[in-house]
């Protein structure tokens, strides 16, 4: 699904990523972890086209996406769901309008929007909250709206940058369970996090970054057969 070859990203003198090569298979669930400043966000930004690698090459779904123009970046993002720590919702719009946004920008017809938005909200457990204003929801609920927006057009890949960073323990677990459910439907999921507790609770393959370098690729811990470990879950 995702292939990175010798990716380097420098900001002036500073190298945020140094020679990162990774393969992520279709349907995998992967953590990207490492201390603050290790390059986790930078790696995701390169994947969704917000930054261009200084050198190296990358493929997403067999397509070379190393240096796309703005128009192609927009196309790429329509096939990705992106989730951030700070949700990035439009606070004065309703839950349904926020989720519909991802379909509207593609020019999806109204009836399709009316069908898919409730379905996505159902998956994140917000059925019936369509008409609430985004700003009236709790943090956990807002993050679930953001996840619904990310999955509403059935993307092949989902990129999450610290999706539980702003949430307390209970809500973080809820969000992780939703991500697991999405993964079980066949979506490739990449989650950047430094929450070791969550990684222990939902063991998956781990890419560990250290100062911009890929230090280790760990297979999922075997000690528990956590619920939600799908068949695609290989080392």
């Amino acid at each position, binding site marked *: 699904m995702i292939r990175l070859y010798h990716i380097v990203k420098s900001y002036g003198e500073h190298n945020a990523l140094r020679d990162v090569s990774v393969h992520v298979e279709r349907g995998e669930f992967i953590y990207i972890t490492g201390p603050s400043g290790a390059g986790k966000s930078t790696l995701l*930004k390169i994947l*969704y*086209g*917000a*930054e261009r690698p200084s050198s190296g090459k990358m493929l997403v779904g067999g397509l070379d996406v190393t240096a796309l123009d*703005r*128009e192609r970046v*927009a*196309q*790429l*993002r*329509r096939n990705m769901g*992106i989730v951030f720590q700070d949700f*990035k*919702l*439009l606070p*004065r*719009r309703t839950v349904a309008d926020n989720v519909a*946004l*991802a379909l*509207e*920008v*593609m*020019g999806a017809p*109204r009836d399709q929007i009316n069908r898919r938005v409730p379905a996505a909200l159902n998956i994140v457990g917000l059925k019936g909250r369509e008409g609430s204003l985004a700003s009236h929801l709790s943090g956990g609920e807002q993050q679930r709206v953001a996840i619904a*927006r990310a999955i509403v057009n059935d993307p092949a890949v989902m990129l999450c940058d610290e999706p539980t960073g702003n949430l307390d323990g209970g809500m973080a677990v809820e969000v992780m369970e939703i991500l697991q459910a999405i993964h079980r439907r066949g979506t490739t999921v990449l989650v950047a996090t430094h929450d070791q507790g969550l990684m222990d609770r939902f063991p998956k393959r781990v890419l560990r970054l250290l100062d911009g370098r890929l230090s280790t690729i760990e297979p999922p811990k075997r000690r528990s057969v956590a619920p939600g470990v799908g068949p695609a879950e290989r080392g």
Partner: protein
Amino acid sequence: MIEGLRRVVRGIREHFYFFVVSTGVVASALVLLGLFAMVLRDVNAMVGSWQADQHVSAYFAAGVTPEVETEMHALVAGRREVAKVERVTSADAAVWMTERAPELAAVFSELGPAALPASLEITLQPEIATPEKMEAFVASLKIQGTRPDGDGVIGTVWEDVDYGQEWVARVHTFLSLLTALGFAFGAATGLATLFLVANTIHLVVHARQDELAILRLVGATERYIVGPFIVEGVMQGLIGGLTATVVLYAIHQGLLVRLHSLLSLAMGAAPTFLPADQVVVLVATGVALGAGAAWGAVRRFLARLP
């Protein structure tokens, strides 16, 4: 199309205050421009009336016979610099004067009908309005009036040729200054207007930059994002332009017309409101300003987004 309109309406509804402020700023800018255009029109009309007045009075010397007067009249009328020439006899002049100053009637009847000199009242073509050309015309008129006297001495048929020498020179300098000032003020007004509208719309887009970032993140193309902003800009230009026209009309009726009646002696032609085609240009300027500023601002913010 319908989807696009929905988005425009939603954008205006969600940011109605910004829409009103932007429209107000466009309207103010256009009032400024329109006022300038109106004053310029008035000044132009004024200049036109002054130039149309370029006038020479050539007074005949005492003792010039009516035959010579007739001959000079024909000569002057034949010159191409001359738009119109009117012969005024001593009697005509006395009547004219008596009409305006009845208290002088007694003086004239005492002095006799020849108290005032006969004259040719000459109106020149507008292109002779510069001091140099008028001076040249008067000089050649003086040469044409030269006659050998009975005693072999050179004499002239003119008592005096009067064209308000100083007045012409002063008006001319003043008009050149006025034109230069007009251009400077016009350029300043235009720049101020552009600056005002561009900055306001820049601020409005700034307030909506989170929305731009989110749209971009979910895969919106630049065209999709910019479109509604441009339509909003067009609407602001239209509404602002029509508002400005109403305000300008009120200013015209309430202020300029009254001011004019106070100064009518100096100004000549009555001020007229902007003609329809200039109103259309004003509104079109608003539309171009609104749409252009929106396009520029959104593009600038998008360029900064990842």
